[in-house]
């Protein structure tokens, strides 16, 4: 990131840079919004606002995917996470009646300290990626040209159903088992065991 700033600092000014800077600024803005929304999820005292912040965070992630030309993943992110999963969260919160909770951020317990240090370590590791610099074009057999030709949905489908077929099928079996399990849990009641003494 710093070399990026340096690059724009030293570059000769030309009008086309407006667009380039706009693009970079947009990415940066969306990224910061995502972080702020994530903080809001943790720091908010009312559960409904927490859920809404989480939705905002997911939408920001989808926007980031979109900015990096991964349209398919962006759409899936919105459809599955922001659209389907979070609406169930909101449902349950709205049905149970959301009460504001007393959050005391100031008094630090041992658990909070542990969680904080863990997140802090992760964040420091994340900061190290700043040294990598500008986003690089994708490597491997799916190049930018291939992506332009087939569209990212097709590209993902091709890799999923050829290279990663077994993990994909295993995941689908897992989902099937989970679905059957949910129906069993919701539908059937386990009959009581009859005892002789009764």
């Amino acid at each position, binding site marked *: 990131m710093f070399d990026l700033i340096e690059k724009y600092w030293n570059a000769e000014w030309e009008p*086309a840079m407006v667009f380039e800077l706009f693009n970079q600024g947009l990415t940066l803005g969306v990224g910061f919004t995502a972080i702020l929304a994530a903080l809001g999820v943790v720091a908010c005292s009312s559960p409904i606002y927490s859920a*809404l912040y989480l939705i905002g965070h997911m939408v920001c992630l989808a926007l980031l995917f979109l900015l990096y030309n991964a*349209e*398919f993943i962006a759409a899936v992110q919105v*459809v599955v996470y922001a*659209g389907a999963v979070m609406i169930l969260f*909101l*449902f349950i919160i709205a049905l149970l009646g959301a009460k504001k909770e007393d959050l005391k951020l100031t008094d630090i317990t041992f658990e909070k300290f542990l969680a904080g240090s863990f997140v802090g370590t992760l964040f420091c590791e994340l900061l190290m990626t700043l040294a990598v610099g500008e986003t690089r074009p994708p490597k491997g057999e799916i190049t930018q040209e291939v992506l332009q030709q087939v569209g990212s*949905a097709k590209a993902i489908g091709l890799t999923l159903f050829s290279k990663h077929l077994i993990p994909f099928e295993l995941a689908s079996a897992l989902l099937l088992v989970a679905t059957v399990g949910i129906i069993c849990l919701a539908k059937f009641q386990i009959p009581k065991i009859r005892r002789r003494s009764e």
Partner: protein
Amino acid sequence: MFDWLDPYWFLIIGSVKAVIIAVAVMSAVPALVWLERRLLGRFQVRLGPNRVGPLGLGQLIADSIKLLFKESIVQSSADKFLFHLAPAIVVFTSIVTFSVIPFGTSYELGGETVGLWGANTNIGLLLFLAMSSMGIYGIVMAGFSSNNKYSLMGGLRSSAQMISYELTLGLAALAVVIMTGSLNLAEIVNQQGNIAGWNIWYQPLTFLLFFVAGIAETNRAPFDLPEAEQELVAGFFTEYSGMKFSMFFMGEYINMITMSALVTVLFLGGWHAPVDFLDVPIIWFVGKVFFLLCVFIWIRATFPRIRYDRLMAFGWKFLLPLSLGNMLIYGTLKALSII
């Protein structure tokens, strides 16, 4: 002088197109309200609005001005922020949803190719589903933030309904995608061509499923459970008044236009004329959408509202298995390379 702009023309053209589409769609809403009131009047053997201006056309201006200048009431127990945010989300998502609809071929304009669509992405159909599922949040928020039992029930009902019927909608659209092999809406239209190639002849059941799910998705009668007057006053927008109230209306009508446009694109050959020599840009697309809008209104005038548990049973136990089976059949046909 403007050479440096060359690689960025698409951004400028895109912004202009975005403004034009948004304005056009929003200004179509009052006209649609007028059309609905006139048609409903005729369906019910009465005249409908006919006093203000010729054919009652002044009514739409009068209504818009009235709604704009009405007092906006926010009750003190409401969650203010969400209360104001909800109608904005509904209108925003419905306009963004329309952006993926192609309504004409691309033209050369000063060396640049300009397509008559907001965004011709490779994931057009998925983007439509994603944005329409985001629109539910506006309704849930409206129901929740009003702090009113009727609103909450209306909001929950409507989101449950939209989630249930979105599955059928997506699966029906998937059958079309399986046949054409593309998520790109412009390409789906281009593959259909004139009347012999329209998808409705190849997939009549899919068309029916998509249309029924589309009516439920837009919360139109006979599936207008969220605003069932005799049970819920007005559903999720009970507490709204003035312009915010009309923004929910706007969202509903724009969704109606988008759904009609999508049915046109997927099944009725988009902007193509029935026969090749009649091809005029845009006119045919608008005509088909207009026809489908009239069908929407016709259905509203014909069918009574169905009961809520019946609605859910119909969606989950009848439409969903049917659309799954439908998709399976077309998948098999595609695998055997018959279609």
